[in-house]
């Protein structure tokens, strides 16, 4: 693989960039792989990457029915944080955040991780208590966060109106090393690195069935024919139920639409990410200058990647109230994704009733930030059969009533 660097660019500049190889190889499926990962989104590609990097398992295929990174990886608001309340969440999200810190170097692909700082606003007494609780929990979890005053919030984010008549800002939970990254680049960077390790990334290939021998998986049927494998990882987010059904088991998840929008680009005016859970909206400014806006999910099961406009309206209303200068900006584009939510709104990284089949889903609205940590943990689970990071996220926790409920303090937004 040709290394990326300023020098490489300079060299190519003088031969019309004719020397650049494909970022990832185009391959047809082999007859058999040690591991097949279904879903070439961030989570699937990261899983494959760490299988190779951490466990030397490289006879791996990542199968994608569309184009890689084309699902929620490519349609989210790119927020990265690990200021979670519950231990299992804080562990995997902080693992993830720390991997983002060095991802560009690890992958030799600039994913533009920008630890610009993230604030969760407290606008009610209840939120103050909730976030102070999170701050205390984080202090014991090795997650660096701090409770900051309203004045400090204003200092970090001058365009915010902290004296709103309705919900004045009372303070915030600040994670200085939270931020954003370039979402597509995360998928592309992993894909390039996987391909470089000899893994096959097979796009435009849909899994039509899961082949089992008794209770053990032996392969998959695809639109490009049958492919054998010893282990199968299902990492398909919103379509997890559909795929699980093919493997003969069900998942405690539902798929709903999550929407986001961007404004037209403007000059830099906001250097932090702000989440306002009382009014249900979050905001950051992309490197292009667009104000990136997201909110809560739609209420009903939906596979269309289109949402209902009134949710966009509620989110915009909330953010214009909190950031009055936004009013004069224009909505450039709105879009929707399909997110899969579980009974406790926390993900599932788990073995399944089918031997050799592992599932990674249920990230709901919080998936992007978890990509490297999720991949790291999922790879360990698939390679070793267990991982401390996935222990609590097994799909059987619902039977025992052992939930991981983050809505407790953080509200619902991610």
């Amino acid at each position: 693989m040709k290394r990326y660097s300023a020098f490489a660019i300079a060299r190519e500049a003088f031969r019309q960039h004719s020397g650049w190889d494909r970022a990832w190889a185009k391959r047809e499926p082999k007859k058999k792989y040690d591991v097949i990962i279904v879903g070439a989104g961030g989570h699937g590609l990261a899983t494959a990457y760490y299988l190779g990097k951490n466990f030397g398992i490289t006879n791996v295929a990542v199968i994608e029915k569309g184009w890689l990174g084309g699902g929620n990886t490519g349609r989210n608001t790119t927020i990265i944080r690990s200021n979670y309340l519950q231990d299992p969440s804080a562990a995997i999200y902080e693992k993830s955040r720390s991997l983002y810190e060095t991802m560009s170097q690890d992958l030799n692909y600039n994913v533009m991780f920008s630890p610009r700082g993230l604030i969760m606003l407290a606008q009610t007494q209840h939120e103050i208590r909730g976030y102070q609780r999170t701050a205390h929990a984080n202090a014991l979890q090795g997650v660096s966060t701090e409770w900051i005053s309203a004045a400090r919030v204003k200092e970090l984010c001058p365009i915010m109106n902290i004296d709103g008549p309705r919900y004045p800002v009372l303070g915030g939970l600040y994670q200085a090393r939270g931020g954003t990254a370039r979402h597509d680049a995360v998928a592309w960077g992993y894909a390039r690195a996987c391909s470089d390790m000899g893994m096959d990334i097979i796009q435009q290939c849909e899994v039509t069935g899961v082949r089992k021998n008794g209770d053990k998986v032996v392969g998959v049927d695809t639109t490009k024919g049958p492919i054998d494998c010893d282990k199968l990882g299902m990492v398909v987010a919103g379509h997890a139920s559909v795929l699980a059904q093919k493997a003969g088991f069900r998942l405690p998840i539902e798929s709903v639409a999550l929407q986001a929008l961007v404004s037209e680009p403007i000059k830099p005016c906001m250097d932090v990410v702000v989440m306002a859970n009382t009014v249900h909206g979050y905001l950051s400014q992309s490197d292009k200058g667009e104000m990136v806006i997201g909110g809560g999910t739609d209420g009903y099961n939906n596979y269309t990647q289109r949402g209902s406009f009134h949710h966009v309206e509620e989110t915009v209303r909330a953010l214009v109230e909190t950031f009055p200068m936004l009013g004069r900006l224009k909505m450039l584009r709105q879009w929707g994704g399909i997110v899969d939510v579980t009974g406790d709104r926390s993900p599932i990284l788990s073995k399944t009733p089918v031997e050799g089949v592992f599932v990674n889903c249920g990230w709901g609205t919080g998936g992007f930030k978890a990509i490297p940590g999720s991949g790291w943990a999922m790879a360990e689970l698939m390679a070793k059969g267990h991982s401390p990071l996935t222990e609590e996220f097994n799909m059987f926790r619902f039977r025992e009533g052992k939930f991981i409920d983050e809505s407790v303090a953080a509200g619902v937004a991610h």
Partner: protein
Amino acid sequence: MLTLHCPNCGVHADETDLHAEGEAHLKRFGPDSSDDDFHDYMFQRQNPKGVHFERWKHVYGCGKYFLAARCTATLEVFGTYSAQTHEPPQAIKDAISAKRPGWSWGDFS
């Protein structure tokens, strides 16, 4: 932006007058039921990409619940009906069969 006909008050309701209330026809399992039954009742969902049965509440309108048969892949609505029933009326099932031959959902088809 859905519109659903409320069978209780006859209004062709805008989605903003309604509240989605999750999967329909769940069978409640109480004390002495098995862990599996209770788990499935609480958390296991059909979540189909296609024909689905769900609960809606006309929350800004008459305040009554009703059930809807809807396609989650196209948002086509096959019909709405009373919440006071354990399974979809035959007319609804027929309407679905006409549009989606061979459909099935849970115990229904």
